[in-house]
């Protein structure tokens, strides 16, 4: 056993988490805080979908017909964010660039405004708070918006955060809580007949575990065959501009296609995102960049003067019903915490709370009960 164990790994961690994205690290930190010995296996924590995420905590403005369970889950997690953030900033000493000015959702054309009016009516029937604004009112909030916008909606309860800062802070807080990072790539989960599962590493070693949490995003299906997760490619851009260029999260519809601009405190703006069913095609394409810039420029003409600092591709872990997979994964001692789609950052607190409860015997938050992976098993 010791010959196959990578150096520095204590035998018999209570919990081994495969995947150090925002979901896996949030689970790791909260679980370690409850006194369990926890290891995270990931060669590059925060390097997956989280790296390309915009960090919108926007269940109100992202609500979709047919997806009320996801809305309830998102609202519950949004409500958990302030305490999650306060503790994380306190324990890591990092600042997350957490912002609560809300989402301004704007319409470029009359058809887009008709869509937003229909959406606002739906949001109100769900008890959500949205305000209808004229184009001029939108521009009083965000002067850089195009004068030719038709109008918009303000969702004051939405928030946003910098996902890259969140994963760095989570890693720091996790280590301070006594957690171990195994900076290697997992090759599979060993599922013995009676005993505890362990994690097999690509380098050949194994990490023994009391229980395993699979939080490997879209790659989770390769670790647990049959798990209904698929990669949904997203291309995003980062622009660098003056501080205060935008002060709110701006989402927009441009002749039917959705676009968003998410400003950071340092002047950076994340601009996204494509949504493509192309497997693990990691290419940044001319068409993807063109469409993102074209639509963003329709909303905020001045962006063309900013520096194009970065292009990136991420793979959202998509599920058939867009709800994540949180809970027992169908094998003894193995849990899933994946399938968060476009909502990994938003859902990190409630995912961590649910998995920590499952591991330590507490109560799973009610809104997370809809995420039991068992719903896809016959």
């Amino acid at each position, binding site marked *: 056993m010791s010959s196959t164990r990578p150096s520095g790994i204590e035998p018999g961690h209570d919990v081994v988490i495969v995947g150090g994205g925002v979901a896996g690290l949030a689970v790791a930190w909260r679980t370690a805080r409850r006194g369990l010995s926890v290891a995270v296996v990931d060669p590059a924590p925060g390097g997956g979908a989280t790296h390309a995420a915009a960090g919108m905590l926007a269940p109100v403005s992202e609500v*979709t*017909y*047919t*997806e009320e369970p996801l809305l309830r889950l998102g609202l519950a997690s949004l409500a958990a964010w302030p305490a999650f953030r306060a503790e994380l900033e306190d324990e890591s000493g990092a600042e997350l660039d957490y912002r609560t000015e809300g989402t301004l959702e704007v319409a470029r054309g009359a058809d887009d405004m008709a869509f937003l009016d229909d959406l606002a009516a*739906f949001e109100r029937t769900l008890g959500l708070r949205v305000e209808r604004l004229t184009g001029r009112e939108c521009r009083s909030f965000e002067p850089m918006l195009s004068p030719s916008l038709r109008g918009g909606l303000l969702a004051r309860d939405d928030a946003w955060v910098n996902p890259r800062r969140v994963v760095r802070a989570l890693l720091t807080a996790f280590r301070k809580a006594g957690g171990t990072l195994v900076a290697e790539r997992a090759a599979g989960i060993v599922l013995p007949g009676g005993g505890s599962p362990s994690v097999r590493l690509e380098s050949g070693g194994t990490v023994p575990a009391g229980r395993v949490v699979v939080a490997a995003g879209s790659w989770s*299906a390769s670790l647990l065959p049959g798990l*209904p*997760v*698929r*990669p949904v490619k997203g291309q995003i851009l980062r622009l660098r501009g003056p501080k205060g260029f935008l002060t709110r999260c701006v989402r927009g519809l441009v*002749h*039917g296609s959705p676009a968003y601009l998410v400003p950071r405190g340092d002047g950076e703006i994340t601009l996204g995102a494509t949504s*493509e*069913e*192309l*497997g693990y*095609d990691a290419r940044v394409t001319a068409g993807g960049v063109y469409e993102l810039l074209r639509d963003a420029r329709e909303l905020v003409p001045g962006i063309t003067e900013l520096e194009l600092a970065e292009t990136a591709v991420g793979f959202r872990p*998509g599920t*058939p*019903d*867009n709800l994540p997979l949180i809970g027992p994964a169908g094998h003894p001692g193995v849990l899933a915490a994946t399938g968060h789609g476009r909502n990994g950052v938003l859902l990190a607190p409630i995912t961590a709370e649910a998995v920590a409860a499952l591991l330590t015997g507490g109560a799973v938050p009610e809104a997370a009960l809809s995420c039991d992976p068992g719903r896809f098993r016959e």
Partner: protein
Amino acid sequence: MTEQDASGDVFVLGGEKFTSRLIMGTGGAPSLEVLDQALEASGTELTTVAMRRLDPAARGSVLDLLRARNIKVLPNTAGCFTAGEAVLTARLAREALETNWVKLEVIADERTLLPDPIETFDAAERLVADGFVVLPYIGDDPALARRLEDAGCAAVMPLGAPIGSGLGIRNPHSIELIAEAATVPVILDAGIGTASDAALAMELGCDAVLLASAVTRAHRPGLMAAAMRQAVTAGRLARLAGRIPRRRYAEASSPSRPA
């Protein structure tokens, strides 16, 4: 075919027989699960997928849904602006999906997404020569429909209104003229907003209806799919039954004098 229902009414397209006359598109659904429910409720046997937005090898994709439901896949060339791109896309689709069927879609401009007649015709000729079963998306132009039929297309697919507009059938007269003249199936494609639009298409003499957004972007896609299924059947039956002539004045349904 009986006097009371449409059993035995078969839709023949490209040499294959279909019971359903509702062809579905897959774009715009909020999730795969909702799309799957809508496909089931629609009763469709033929469904289009955009080849440019899909990796045929990826697992858990829309193609898996179609295979699981035994729905024939009709690749389309959505997103192409030239005949050259469309021919290339059709050939990639043939290789990846092992089908020689293609819904030919060559768009003239991004705002209206109206089809480009010249590029469409050019691509149709080349694809027919290459052995494809070509189903071209076109404007509601009877002359172009006739030319494409002569060029060997297996059907013609005139629009009711621009893609995704939900404006219904803006020029019923042209659709009727196309249906009257065609010897290949006429499939109303694009513009359907609600069930009555689909019924109207069938009453005008179309052989089938293709729609996506009207279902996938509805508040409750599964319900709208069921509505479309019934509307297409109702419109087909009404067409076969033969409507009464329109009159300017009333005619008592129970005549006062015996006939």
